């Protein structure tokens, strides 16, 4: 769309120089941090929308996106990953910022916020993973054939932002790299959630003493909407927005409802 919000890529040397973390940023206004979902960062319409009001900083999970694919081997555990994100925030000089995450990125946001609630002002978790109900398990998205991914992720495939996201490059070489990076990103994020995306967040979530907005698609086929109640029960005072007609990416499927609600919450 508009080149005005084409993100700028930078690399931050962190983790005692063992990692060069790629950070994309765009926009104007006060800073905001965004953590992407399991398939890697795409600068989508939602981020463009946020960037009209904030300077959005979106670090890429080590190994994914523009970073060195082998960087993932420097991250041994979820504990490492949380502290690496602390290094990234330090390097960006960000304090008391709003933090937004989607799916895997929302789980990471919740972990980071539970560790350092004082570093953040507000928290938006869109369809976070990280909890587990035995009778209503989270779908193992890594076990879904890649061509069935869109049906799993989205309730509304016709939404323009979804269509844009699903458009792959025409150039054959770019297409190869895009596909490989997508699969690799799932592998990298999978390191922190396989085989069951419950790594003890339920014991830590109470430490998120921040104004929090939970956003869920009513027809989320990855993390069923019931999980919103669980997150709300652990995070005191959390507000919940359930979006009708949306799946696992309500911010792309129903942007007219989600973006204004998120902006209002962040600016409130």
């Amino acid at each position, binding site marked *: 769309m508009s080149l005005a919000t084409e993100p700028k890529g930078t690399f931050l040397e962190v983790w005692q120089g063992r990692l060069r973390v790629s950070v994309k940023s765009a926009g104007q206004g006060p800073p905001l941090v965004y953590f992407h979902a399991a398939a890697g960062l795409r600068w989508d319409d939602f981020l463009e929308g946020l960037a009209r009001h904030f300077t959005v900083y979106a670090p890429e999970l080590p190994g994914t996106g523009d970073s060195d694919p082998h960087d993932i*081997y420097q991250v041994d555990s979820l504990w490492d990953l949380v502290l690496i994100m602390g290094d990234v925030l330090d390097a960006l000089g960000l304090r008391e910022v709003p933090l937004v995450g989607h799916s895997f990125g929302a789980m990471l946001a919740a972990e980071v916020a539970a560790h350092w609630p004082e570093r953040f002002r507000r928290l938006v978790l869109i369809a976070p993973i990280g909890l587990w109900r035995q009778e209503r398990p989270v779908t193992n998205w890594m076990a879904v054939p890649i061509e069935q991914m869109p049906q799993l992720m989205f309730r509304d495939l016709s939404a323009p932002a979804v269509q844009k996201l699903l458009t792959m490059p025409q150039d054959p070489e770019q297409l190869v790299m895009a596909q490989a990076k997508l699969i690799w990103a*799932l592998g990298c994020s999978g*390191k922190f959630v*396989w085989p069951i995306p419950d790594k003890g967040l339920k014991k830590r979530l109470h430490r998120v003493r921040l104004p929090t907005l939970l956003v869920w698609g009513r027809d989320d086929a990855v993390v069923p909407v019931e999980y919103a109640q669980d997150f709300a029960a652990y995070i005191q005072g959390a507000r919940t927005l359930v979006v009708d007609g949306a799946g696992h990416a309500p911010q792309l499927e129903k942007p007219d409802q989600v973006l204004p609600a998120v902006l209002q919450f962040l600016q409130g």
Partner: protein
Amino acid sequence: MFHLMPYRDLPADFEQRYHSVWVDPPWWELADAERVGQYYNWTLDELTYAARAGLDGICTNEHHQNAYGFMPSPNLMGSALAKATNGLDVAVVQMGSTLPTTNPPIRVAEEYAMLDCISGGRLVAGMPLGTPMDVNYCYGIPPMEQRERYREAHDLIIKAWTSREIFAWNGKYWQLPMVNPWPRPIQQPHPPVWVPGSGSITTWDFAIDHEHCYCFLSYFGWQAALGVVDGYWNRVQEKGKDMNPYRLGFLQLVVVSETDARAEEDYGRHVEYFYHKCLHVAREFAFPPGHHDWESLVAMVRRGGLGGLTSLNLREMGFRDFVKQGCVIAGSPETVRDQLREVIKRLRVGNLMVLLHIGSMPHELTLKNIDLFAREVLPHLRHIWDDEGWENHWWPQRLRSTPQHVG
């Protein structure tokens, strides 16, 4: 002789009715424990029979939650075989305990040392990475960690066998305060190590750099294997190693009967059962993201190769197609020995592994196949590499008098 220990009585419409032969085939609908007990006993009998018939080695392997081949503990089988074959010049080839999922990995060092002791130094120590189905799905290891865990387990096992000092292991995945396994193997410095692989370049390098035997396990025949095997030998040369054919193991399906026509009659439906049912693996189970390292992944995507185990449309193929493709070598002893000789020479295989029990083959027919192979085929293959004068460093020392090993 290689044996998978498959479920031999799957329903005729198995591949239409069920999602996958691996990970999620429903035990309670499909299987019967009494019958399975019979299969395990037949399997032990068939391998022991092969040892008595003159094959050089007998192989077991580890797989989980499937009807394709379910020896979850190959060392339980290997132990019975080691005992049953004492006094015979036959290697006990464990292909073997899966390194990333055996916890802690010194369990492999211990059990293999037990097998080496029980067998009087006849163990070949297979060190498999494990399939994604077994390691990631059945045993819950993150795909991204599988290769790192494998390399650490390998280094720990070798050190546990060879170190004269008790040592502490401070690894990324395992920590042990005082490593001092009892027993240690008879073979010194340690039993020969075979590394099974399916064609990834990182596995070649690993095997070559550690002076292990690389075993290409493919069910799609020697023509399909040419690319991988030639690539492996190129890599051996690039690394300045000798072209000793015993650096390579290769698995081939083989069925022998009195005549070519009789081979089709005897084995046709069992070969089809294997390719149609036993290899009916759901694609997503075979390729979880992170299982292949970055370089292999890019190469696979570029080849358009995320489609499945093979580009062959197995379900559309019948016995004659599998023979034509070289997936299975079938026929009279003359036919089989001529083709195997060509395979051995062309691929430069020192350690040929033959799958002589295939799919639904009943016990008696398996014995027939073993018998014909051992009497009419094997003697003609033994001396293929004699004129080049190589020593098989990847074979138990005390069994090395026989050249060209066929197990």
